[in-house]
Structure formats: C-alpha cells, structure tokens
C-alpha cells in the first residue's frame, strides 16, 4: 500500500512538473513610459486584457504629465531608456543621430500593417524625426481636440443674459455669474472666471478675445515671430484680467491652484464658464464628475462662447492645435530586446479599432457596452459608469486621445454636443505662426522663457503698481534671458519654412 501510494504521489508530482513546464508561457517583455494624470492601479483589468491579447508582459511607467520630461531626461542621461516612449524637439533628433532609437521601418510590413495602412504616401516622411530617411517615430494625428469656452445655459437663464459675443458682454456675464447668484443658492459663492497657471487651456478664450494665442507665438507687424506676451494687445488682455481680479470676479487662487482644482471649480458649480475641450467637459466628465443635477444631453446644459474680435470682426475661438501633430513622436529605443513586439503593441493599441476601444473604453461587456456602435453610442456599465473607477481599471489611461489614427475611438464616440462644438470651434479657431520646438534657442532657453511669461502674467494681474513699467521690465528680461535669440531663430525658421 505504502509503495503504491509513493508511486502514485511521485507520478502526480512528475505530471505536475511536466504540466507546469509544458503550459507555462514565456512572454516577451516590453517596457513603455507614458505621460498622464489619471489615478490607475499598477495592475489593472485593461492592462491584463491587453497582455493576454498580445501575449506580452507589458510594463508601464506612467508618469504625471508635468514630470514626464524630467523623468525622460534622467533616463536618457542614465542610458536606461524604456522600449517605447514619446519624445519631442532637439532631444528626439539627438537620440536619432546618436543611434539611441531605431529605424523600425523593416518591422512595419510584418508587425505594423495597420500603421502602414493608416498613413498616406509620404506622410510619415513629413515628421521632423523621419526627415533623414527611415521611420524613427510615429505621431499622434488624432489627439487634436480644440479648446472651447463652455458656458452654463441654466446660469445664463438665472441671470437673464445671453451667450456673450463681445468683450463687454463677456465681462457683463462674468460679473453676473459672480454677483448675481447664478446658482440660486442665495450665497455669494461663485466666480465669473476661473483659470490656473498650471493649465494653459483655461486662459485661451479670454486671450483669444483680444486676438492673442495664449502661450503661443505671434507675428509682430515687422514680421518678427515672438512670444505672445509681446503681442500689441497683450496689455489690453492683462487690463481686462486685472479688472476681473480687482473686482473679485476672477478666482484669485489662479497662481496656486492645480489643474485638477480648476476642474473641480467647474464640476462643483463654483464657476459657470470654463475653458476646456468639449470632448473632455461634455463627454469624459459628463455626467459623473458634476455634482449638480445635469440633463441627459450636455447640449441642454452647455453652450459655447465665441467672442468677436474687434479688429477683424471674426469670432475668436480656441487656438489651432498643432503641436501633437508634428512634434511628439513615439520612438523605440535601441536597447529594446523585441522591437517586433514593440511595433506589434503600437500597431494594436493605437492603430486598430479593437485596440483603441479596449484602451479607451475598457473591456466590452464588463466596463461598457455599445448601444449603437455604428453611431458611436455606448454606455458604461455598473461601477464603471463612475469616471474614477473606470480609469482606475485602466480605461482611458493608455490611450487617452483615443488612438493615433485620424478617425479614432475618441472621435467615433463623441456625443452630439461634443462633435458639433468641436467642429464648429474649428471654424473660429485662432491661428498662429507655429514653430517647432527643435530650434536650438528653444532647447537652450525655452523653459526659462516660459517661466518668465507665467511670472509676468501672474504679477501683472495682481500688481498695484505701474503696469506698463512692470510689463516693460518683464519684456526686457524675457529678451535678455535668451528671448531675443529665440525670436531671431523663430523668425528665420518661419521665413524659410512657413
């Protein structure tokens, strides 16, 4: 008996060993670093599903957007680059020239058929990083949502005003939204305007109303390309903001609040007008993030503000979104052990409908279900109706823009209001001379100059001194700290490449 038992146990043990070695799958590992500001679990349903579908071990280093370049610089200096990452500007070209990233064109036909199918003939070569031949980087062409200025119709009705169309009307509405008890709670607890220095889009339309593309470049009358702070009407925009600040219409915490805190002001009904793209505000956040009662159709709640430019007579909307189209590129490091898997990953996640849906919407049947797939109508299921839970489980994290194809999941699933407001905003968009960030002077002085611009704006809004004199000092500082050199290079580039 004892012998039989021993033999049986030995046999079971041997079979178990055989089974484990036979069925254990050895998965290739790919590492990637990406920027984003969602709170996501390290291991989550979407990532696990993705690993199973691609038969890969995927290790994601998810970095907050503000820290991404810092982290990347550190990894480059330490020569410990992840397999897949995004890079822009001169750094991208330096990495290419130093052989730190690979030309992955040989892998595209076999492992990236959807990538190839997605681009038109000669389109990839237009990317700065591919300008010397080969394919070193792929760009995100679809993440081009434009910023809208959304206004709450119920608040407008409460204060008896219409959607503003001129700067004066804008002020009137902002004033009423601050002091006219627009939420009807009987308390003086709202603001007419909320913006955060940590979130550029939140300033766009106020500056656009004066014909100024906020935080972008402008062309002066003599043809010089320079910073927006040197626009001839910059001080007019500042005076408008100063008035809002001094009268208590503008949230005075604009310099200390984070981007998320500025969102929260809108979500909890402390402000009734907010600059953000409608796809985010009227779809991604809607209705889960809002703490007040919302109608089913966001179009019943929101309208878009477009101010008529006094000089041109044209409505000034969001700024034309350029940067992500031409500058940022996903690249594969030379240390990547399995470039074919890296391409397979990029191809699936960013260029196929199935991969885009998974990483954008989550797992079908578990996290969401289609109502009318043809028209992009879907609903999130159960606990995943909550935005925070949805993102913690990995949706909208690895593919927040919905994919890199022109028609991606995000665009396919726009609700009617988001779709209409995005398209309409395009007609009113404020264009500007777009300069790539590959210029030497940008690499050398770019961050410092942006800091000076922010410091100037913040202090000019709150100062009680001589605004014009202080403005002149900031401009002089901007010029002496590398701005003049940057201006010269931008102007030269523009004249040669416009």
């Amino acid at each position, binding site marked *: 008996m004892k012998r039989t038992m021993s033999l049986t146990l030995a046999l079971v043990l041997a079979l178990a060993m055989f089974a484990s070695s036979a069925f254990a799958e050895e998965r290739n590992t790919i590492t990637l670093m990406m920027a984003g500001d969602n709170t996501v679990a390290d291991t989550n349903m979407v990532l696990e599903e993705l690993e199973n579908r691609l038969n890969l071990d995927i290790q994601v280093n998810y970095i907050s957007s503000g820290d991404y370049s810092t982290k990347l610089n550190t990894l480059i200096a330490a020569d410990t680059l992840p397999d897949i990452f995004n890079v822009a500007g001169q750094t991208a070209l330096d990495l290419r020239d130093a052989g730190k990233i690979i030309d992955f064109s040989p892998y595209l036909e076999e492992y990236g058929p959807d990538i190839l199918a997605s681009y038109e003939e000669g389109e990839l070569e237009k990317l700065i990083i591919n300008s010397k031949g080969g394919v070193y980087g792929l760009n995100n062409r679809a993440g081009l949502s434009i910023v809208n200025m959304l206004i709450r119709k119920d608040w407008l009705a409460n204060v008896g005003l219409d959607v503003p169309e001129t700067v004066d009307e804008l002020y009137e509405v902002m004033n009423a939204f601050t002091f006219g008890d627009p939420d009807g709670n009987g308390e003086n607890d709202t603001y007419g305007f909320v913006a955060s*220095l940590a979130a550029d889009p939140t300033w766009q339309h106020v500056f656009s109303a004066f014909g100024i593309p906020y935080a972008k470049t402008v062309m002066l009358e003599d043809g010089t390309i320079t910073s927006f702070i040197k626009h001839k009407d910059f001080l007019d925009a500042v005076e408008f903001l100063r008035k809002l600040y001094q009268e208590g219409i503008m*949230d005075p915490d604009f310099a200390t609040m984070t981007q998320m805190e500025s969102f929260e002001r809108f979500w909890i009904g402390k402000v009734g007008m907010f600059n953000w793209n409608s796809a985010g505000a009227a779809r991604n956040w809607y209705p889960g993030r809002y703490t007040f009662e919302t109608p089913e159709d966001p179009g019943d709640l929101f309208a878009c503000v477009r101010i008529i430019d006094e000089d041109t007579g044209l409505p000034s909307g969001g700024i034309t979104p350029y940067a992500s189209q031409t500058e940022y590129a996903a690249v594969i490091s030379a240390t990547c052990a399995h470039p074919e898997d890296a391409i397979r990953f990029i191809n699936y996640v960013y260029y196929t409908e199935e991969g885009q849906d998974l990483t954008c919407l989550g797992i079908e049947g578990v996290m969401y279900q289609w109502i009318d797939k043809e028209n992009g109508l879907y609903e999130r299921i159960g606990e995943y109706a909550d935005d925070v839970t949805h993102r913690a489980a990995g949706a909208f994290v690895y593919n927040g823009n919905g994919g890199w194809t022109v028609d991606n999941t995000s665009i396919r699933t726009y609700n009617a209001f988001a779709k209409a407001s995005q398209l309409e905003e395009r007609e009113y968009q404020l264009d500007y001379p777009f300069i790539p960030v590959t210029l030497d002077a940008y690499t050398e002085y770019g961050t410092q100059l942006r800091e000076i611009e922010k410091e100037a704006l913040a202090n000019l809004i709150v100062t009680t001194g001589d605004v014009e004199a202080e403005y002149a000092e900031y401009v002089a500082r901007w010029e002496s700290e590398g701005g003049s050199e940057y201006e010269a290079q931008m102007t030269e580039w523009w004249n040669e490449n416009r």
Partner: protein
Amino acid sequence: MVKQRDLRNASGRGYLSKLARDIRMDFLLYVMLLPGIIYFVVFKYAPMYGIIIGFSDYNIVSGFSDMPWVGFGIFEDLFTKAAFQRAFINNIKISFLKILWGFPMPIILSILINEVKNLFYKKFVQTTVILPHFISWFVIYGMLYALCNLSTGAIPEILKSINAAFGTDIEVVNYLAQKETFMTVLILSYLWQSSGYGTIVYLAAITGIDQQLYEAAMIDGAGKMRQLWHITLPSLRSTIITLLIFRVGSIMNAGFDQIFALSNSLVISIADIIDTYVYRIGMEEAKFSLATAAGLFKSLIGLVLVLGTNWIAKKVDPDSGIM
C-alpha cells in the same frame, strides 16, 4: 633631504603599524565602521567624478564619451544669468532668516519641555512637536492650501466671518500668493516642521547635565532664570556651537523640498533658490553642466563657511569646533 624622506617614511610606517595594531586590538569596532566607510565612498566620494560635467559641454544623449572640456566657461555663463543671481540672493536671504528664527527655536523648546514635570505630558508634548518633521512638504502644502485658498480656505473664511460679525475690514488674502506674506508663511511652516525634531539633541544634552549643579544653585537661592543662565545654557554651549557650525555650513541649503512645493509664479521672484534653479535647468531643461556648476559653487561656499565658522568657534572657545 635624504634624512627628511627617511623620517617621513619612518613616520608613515609607524602610523601604519599603529593602525594595524589598533585594528588587531579592536577588530570588531573596525568591522562596524566598514559599512559607514563604504557608504561614504560609494555614495559621496565616487559620484564626485561627475563634477567634471561642470567643466565640460555635456550632452545627455552623447554622455561622458563625447564631452569637450570648456574649463570655467560654464561658470562664467552661470554667473551672468540674471535668474541665477536672483536665486543666489534669495538663497542667502531665506537661509539667513531660517537660521535667525529656526536655530534658537529648538533650544527654547527643549528648555521648555525639560521644565515639564509630568512625565506623560512631557512625552506627549515631545512627540507632538517632533511628528511634523515626518510630514512631506507636499502634504504640508496641501494643508496650507486648504488653510489659505480664498475659495474654501479656513483662514479666509474665519476672517470673512469676523469682518461680517464685527464690521471690521481685515484684508482677506491668500498668504501663499502674496510676496508680502509668503516669506512669513515659509518661515513659520519651516519652524513648525523642523523645530521639534531639533529638540532631540538638546534634550539629550540637557539630560546629561549634573543635577547636583541645580540643587546647589537652588540652595544658593538661584531662581529658574538664574539656573538657566548659569547652568543650562553654559552646559549646552559646545552642543550649540557644534550645531551652529553645521547649520552655517549648510546655509546654501535653503530647503529645496519646501520651496519647490510652496512657491508659485506670484512669489517665485523672492522664493527661487539655487536648488530650485538647478532642478529647473538640470532636470527639466537637461542642462546638466550648468546645474553641476551651480551645485558645485553652492557646495564650495558651504565648505568655506564650515571651515570659517569652525575657525571662529575655536578662537572664541578652544574646546569648541568640530575639528
């Protein structure tokens, strides 16, 4: 000449043989010293090789392999930058204020805690004042923001209520976003966070004071203030001087974490210090040469100050000083 060299060799041999004898005698003590030595070699001395970046045109992509030597060119570039000059002046100002207010606080706090006779209450106070040291500056910023922001902050709400109730006209501002008030917030939050932790050394030193001195003083009719002035403070003198030397030596460390977390565009002109400047140009703009030069400059000033303070301390009191 030959004689001198022989003497030197003899002295060197003598030192080595004495060291070998000491090691044999206290072998375990030397073994215990080893991890400390390894730590300093690996983490403090070996990385000093990187200082050459400050004298070279370093590029993060090409790395150390292709790095043209530029001598003091990077330093010249650094010193002409207005942003660095501003950071340098702010650094001195903030450090000076922190020493002025922050250095005496732990001494005062220790003496006060030492006077508490109820043991339970004493421990409670001690723990309460030490705990803030372990709170991250980013959490402290969150707390300060919750206190100071004008929309929902506790302090503005209280001030508004006072104004409404008593018809006063107290100005309600965000203390974190005003140049006039930011420095006060910076120093007060620094005192709150660090003073308690600083009491540990002083309390230990006070505990070591011979109690018979106090008893004798009491018999002679000395009150609490007299005891403090003639016994406690003189007994703490060498501890105070040693810690002052360390503090002055680190005068260029104005507190990166705190300022990085608390500053914003409205106050950056008075809050930007060398460390935040180095972080910005080094980590965000990847100008490692410039950042290294700034860091090295800062360290050299620190070294000079340590040696200078030590020299002064030894002149004033030969038993003081750290070397």
